[in-house]
């Protein structure tokens, strides 16, 4: 019975995601009529369906601006949410999120360096590269701090993550303060750190989609192991989970996912922390359903937030991170009130 309910929720989320994505294609600051949009898509796919006259700029907007933006939003939301679920399961800590290990702040620092030096304006790949390097260096550092003789102390790992994360954040702030002397740079950096999907192109899609597919697929393989880890290290080991190896692999995959996401959309907080909890309140702790449902839930969340932004406030460019918090928090509170006594810590 539990399985049926869980499966139907997963299917519902998938359908909701598709509906939102398609709606997002027809919304935006540039006014394109539905017929024109359909004609453009038909043309792109090779059918001829000229319902009305289309111009080349409509083509560019729909195919080169909106489609990539929606794809990036879906992938980024999925990556962040599933990483949050994995972190919470791995550390048995409900406050865990993708940013807990400082990996996301390391990626941010790399990206801020790319922006400040102006290299981000030179080539499309500079910023993702710097961000990934930042993420991986941070991970290596905290791993080195917390491990000895092949054993990893979880508490130390978490605290090392907090410490290095703080270091990264302060370094970013320092660079930001240097950049405020030149208004343009400072503004770019601030907007970037608040997260946004402005100007995402097919280059970004090419970057994040393979990372997301491989990473999420890899994490789904660990569903059973994560369930076992929830019982405790010793229990998990006695049912055949190589705790150390599993943890390292999970850390690596989540770091790559987080680094990739941040390099493509900046720091969008809140999704990794809250979406898994919302899903857990609905579905229970079984990672077999929790992981895919979190991924879908995160994708739905981000696509919906972006859509809401473009429908309701198209003129102002409010950063996405603000919207996700503003929408997510009340909904989370509503769920908490409804299920006050079922919350598990």
């Amino acid at each position, binding site marked *: 019975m539990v399985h049926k309910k869980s499966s139907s929720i997963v299917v519902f989320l998938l359908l909701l995601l598709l509906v939102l994505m398609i709606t997002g294609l027809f919304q935006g600051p540039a006014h394109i009529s539905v017929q024109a949009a359909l004609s453009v898509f038909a043309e792109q796919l090779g059918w001829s369906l000229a319902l009305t006259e289309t111009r080349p700029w409509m083509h560019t907007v729909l195919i080169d601006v909106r489609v990539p933006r929606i794809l990036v939003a879906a992938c980024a939301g999925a990556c962040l949410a599933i990483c949050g679920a994995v972190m919470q399961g791995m550390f048995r800590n409900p406050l865990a999120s993708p940013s807990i290990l400082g990996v996301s702040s390391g990626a941010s620092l790399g990206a801020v360096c790319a922006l400040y030096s102006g290299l981000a304006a030179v080539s499309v790949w500079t910023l993702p590269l710097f961000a990934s390097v930042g993420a991986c260096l941070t991970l*290596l550092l905290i791993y080195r701090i917390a491990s000895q003789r092949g054993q990893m102390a979880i508490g130390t790992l978490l605290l090392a993550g907090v410490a290095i994360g703080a270091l990264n954040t302060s370094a970013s702030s320092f660079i930001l303060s240097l950049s405020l002397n030149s208004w343009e740079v400072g503004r770019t950096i601030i907007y970037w750190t608040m997260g946004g999907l402005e100007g995402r192109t097919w280059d970004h899609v090419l970057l994040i989609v393979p990372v997301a597919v491989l990473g999420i697929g890899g994490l789904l393989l660990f569903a059973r192991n994560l369930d076992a880890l929830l019982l405790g290290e010793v229990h998990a080991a006695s049912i055949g989970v190589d705790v150390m190896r599993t943890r390292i692999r999970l850390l690596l995959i989540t770091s790559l996912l987080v680094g990739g996401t941040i390099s493509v959309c900046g720091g969008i907080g809140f999704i990794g922390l809250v979406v898994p909890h919302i899903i857990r309140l609905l579905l229970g702790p079984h990672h077999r359903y929790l992981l895919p449902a979190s991924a879908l839930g995160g994708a739905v969340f981000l696509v919906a937030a972006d859509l809401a932004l473009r429908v309701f406030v198209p003129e102002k460019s409010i950063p996405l991170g603000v919207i996700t918090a503003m929408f997510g928090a009340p909904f989370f509170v509503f769920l908490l009130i409804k299920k006050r006594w079922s919350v598990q810590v």
Partner: protein
Amino acid sequence: MLIRVKAIVLTLLFLLAAILWFWSLDLRPQSFNDYRLQSTLVKGNNFPKTLVDASGQEFILHMAPQRLVSVTLATDEILSELVGEQRVVGITHLADDPKISNIPHQYSKHIKRINSDIEAILALQPDLVFVTRYTRAETVRLLFAAGIAVVRLSGDSSFKEIKDNIVTIGRVTGTEDRAGKLLQKLQADREAITAKIKGQPSVRVLFYSLNGYTAGVGTTVDEVIGVAGGINVAQEAALTGSQKISEELAIGLQADVILLNDFATQGKITPAEQLMQNPNWQHVPAVANKRVYGLQGRWPISDSQYSWQGIKEVATLLHTNVFE
């Protein structure tokens, strides 16, 4: 033990791959110019002209563009002087802000005000877009791929750079004559003022704002002070660019004249009065002699032909006897 060695080796390999990949990107040293991306180069005297972007991309401009979009206030202002309004389809919404724009509401209402949203830009169907040196590479690439010319204007911290920008805009829009005339007029005005104040003793000037910012070497403000017959005390502190300094340092520079850049602030007391009432500043010559002036123009933050207005304003304030 084996895991650790493997991890370190893998990380080093990854870093190596990343560095190699980075090197393989087409970065040419001339793309950088004092750590800043160069402006677009324009080749050719008549249309069709070739635009060469700092990232190496070339674009052929077949004829004078008729649908211009500007993404910076500086370009808005320069275009307002060089190009007829019918050729402009999009300007920034900053252009209507009287606190920072020299041309508020000068463009008629039907011209769209935009921020840098790429969709909004594309919807205007431009044939040329003016961007900044910090605009993201993807945006520029997208515009080029959509067949839209992109012109990057880099410098904004000296008169020479602003002149180069004006020249570039003139060449790109086919209005070289008007650009030339504008520059001649600006030069003539400047020479008129410098002639008038010739022989006057130099005055030690501090350019300051109440939140602590001053202008050092390498800013238009610094040049203006120099041309207007003053000495920028910020140079003595070896400051470059626009920088925040401590109140202590500002007081210690003991300027004879203080120019306050708080045109945009509104309140019951003007910034000049506020500073003069501040007990810490009482022993600064400028305050003692009541030579603290609030600047009336937006030229300190302009990066266009309006920067030249500063010369007249500052000269008038510094050499009151000449301009009676």
